[in-house]
């Protein structure tokens, strides 16, 4: 299972295909007939107010939650099937960064990154596990000596980077990020955004990114999906989304914070150009 390079559009251009998803908690409906497409090689930002079910959507796609109805396809495999081979295919080809890293607190950073390697590639010698873990730790922008530290000895930003290193352990083509910049200071958040963009370009990743951070949306997302009214009300590049006439979108993208973020996003683009 290799990474799909960005030019390899062999037939199936969609990394994730969700059709008619329904999620309910008791009487409360979270999703009602939700459709979503994630194209290969793009960074899709998923936004929505609190309680619109962004995390529930991610958990459904990952198979952590069984939806009440609907179809979910991840990298060509049916995520809702009970077929162990399909599950394994998805697990090996997706990496997930949970909100606070969700590192195993009793293992060092290096051991955390080695967990998926040892589980899925037991045939490789231990030295390789270690070297690959070290490579991923450094790719995530951590110093080499962080590999021997316990998660409780790291700052919040470093924990996120360590979580990212673990998510990248198997070189997955598909990466899920749940609020990657929440709880980081603006400088740390901007650095993390750049890191995600760099890795996405270098490793040819498809990224499903849940965020509240307008700066992140403007800086790195190719397209944005807006969750409201129990479904995805729009999926499009940001300039198109901004023009849409939807009450929540108007409030979100035309508030004072959005104007500031747009300004800095444009400066960033100019600087890169």
């Amino acid at each position, binding site marked *: *299972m*290799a*990474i799909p*390079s*960005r*030019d390899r559009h062999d037939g199936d251009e969609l990394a994730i295909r969700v059709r008619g998803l329904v999620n309910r908690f008791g009487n409360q409906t979270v999703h009602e007939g939700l459709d979503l497409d994630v194209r290969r090689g793009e960074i899709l930002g998923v936004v929505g107010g609190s309680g619109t079910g962004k995390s529930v959507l991610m958990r459904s796609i990952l198979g952590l939650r069984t939806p009440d109805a609907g179809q979910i396809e991840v990298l*060509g*495999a049916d995520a809702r099937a009970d077929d162990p081979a399909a599950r394994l*295919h998805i697990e090996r080809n997706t990496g997930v960064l949970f909100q606070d890293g969700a590192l195993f*607190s*009793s293992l*060092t950073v*290096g051991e955390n990154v080695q967990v998926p390697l040892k589980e899925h*590639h037991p*045939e*490789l010698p231990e030295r*390789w596990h*270690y*070297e*690959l873990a*070290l*490579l*991923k730790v*450094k*790719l995530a922008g951590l110093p*080499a*000596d962080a*590999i*021997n530290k*316990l*998660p*409780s000895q790291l700052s919040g930003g470093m924990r996120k980077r360590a979580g990212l290193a673990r998510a*990248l352990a*198997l*070189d997955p083509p598909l990466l899920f990020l749940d609020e990657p910049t929440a709880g980081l200071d603006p400088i740390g958040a901007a650095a993390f955004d750049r890191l995600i963009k*760099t*890795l996405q*370009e*270098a*490793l*040819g990743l498809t990224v499903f990114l849940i965020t509240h951070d307008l700066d992140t949306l403007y800086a790195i997302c190719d397209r944005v999906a807006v969750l409201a009214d129990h479904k995805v009300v729009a999926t499009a590049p940001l300039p198109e989304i901004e023009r849409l006439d939807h009450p929540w979108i108007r409030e979100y993208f035309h508030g004072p914070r959005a104007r500031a973020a747009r300004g800095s996003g444009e400066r960033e683009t100019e600087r890169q150009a």
Partner: protein
Amino acid sequence: MKNAEPPHCAMDPDVDGQLRLSGSWTLSTALQSAQVLGGIQAPVRGMDARGIDQLDSAGVLQLLRYSRSAGLADDALLFRDEHRALVCTIDEVADERPRPQRDYGVAAALERLGRSVHAIGGNIVVLLGFFGENLAKLARLVRQPRRLRLTATVHQMEEVGLDAVPLIALLSYLVGAVIAFLGSTILRDFGAEIYVVELVNIAFLREFGVLLTAIVLAGRTASAFTAQIGAMKAREEIDAIQTLGLDPIDLLVLPRVLALMLMLPLLTFIAMVAGLAGGVTVGAFDLGIPPQMYIARMHETMELRHFLVGLSKAPVFALIIALIGCLEGLKVQGTAQSVGERTTSSVVQTISLVIILDALAALWFMHMGW
């Protein structure tokens, strides 16, 4: 899911010393590609990786390692354009490597043993200090009764006391029956089966009622206290309590200590009654002593002092269980493993301390003639 082509390499017939690579060089084919690279005999002066279809960071790492050990120059490696970003990224970070520091050997085990022996001394001091702090806060509670968290205390009383009644009653009843059986098998030889009544009475009133209750609560309640407080500590809730100007001892520890000190004597009483009932049952069904006769005999021979000796130990055990349970919870440090370690430690400490103290008390009461 497509099956990747295996990694392959061959010498270029046109360029001398040039290696041509093709196929898939990824994490799942890493072992094969190591064999392929290891099988190269001829001297290599350059590598052409443009034939590779699928490449990931594991493959790049292998190629970079190989080219470095073969002493190739940086520009002797040729990659496809679409792979170049990946190779550059890996190249920047793949260099020196520190070895793992964790030590699993015999020396480390000995060191851990030494440290834990040393820690026991510190533990005793900390426990005494915690005991003193609680006494002081308890005294303050007497002067300022408004500080008492009545709701929390009553809630804890329900959890540690009321909810434990069925368990304690069942276990005591069964142990009472077992003691009656054991005693009768020996006493039958002397034709003195009626003395089973005294045996069960004294055993349960003096020792087993309180000991059984304390051991069950040490397993059931001390562990719960440690886990509850430990999880709060790990999630920085204790720090939050402190910064809000509240006292974690008032808020978390004293309600538990008071609840347990009130409930353990009551549970002990229930255990005693249940144990005696176990004796009555065995007497009626197995020894041919009718319940009327059993109870009449109990009235004749039972002495109040046995009951008082047994009950006097209950508050002491309650204090030990509650204090150690809470203290271990407060010692938790941030990790899930730490919560587990401290919970184990609190159960082990409370059960062993309860049994040790009970043995010492038995000796003391005996010599006092009580």
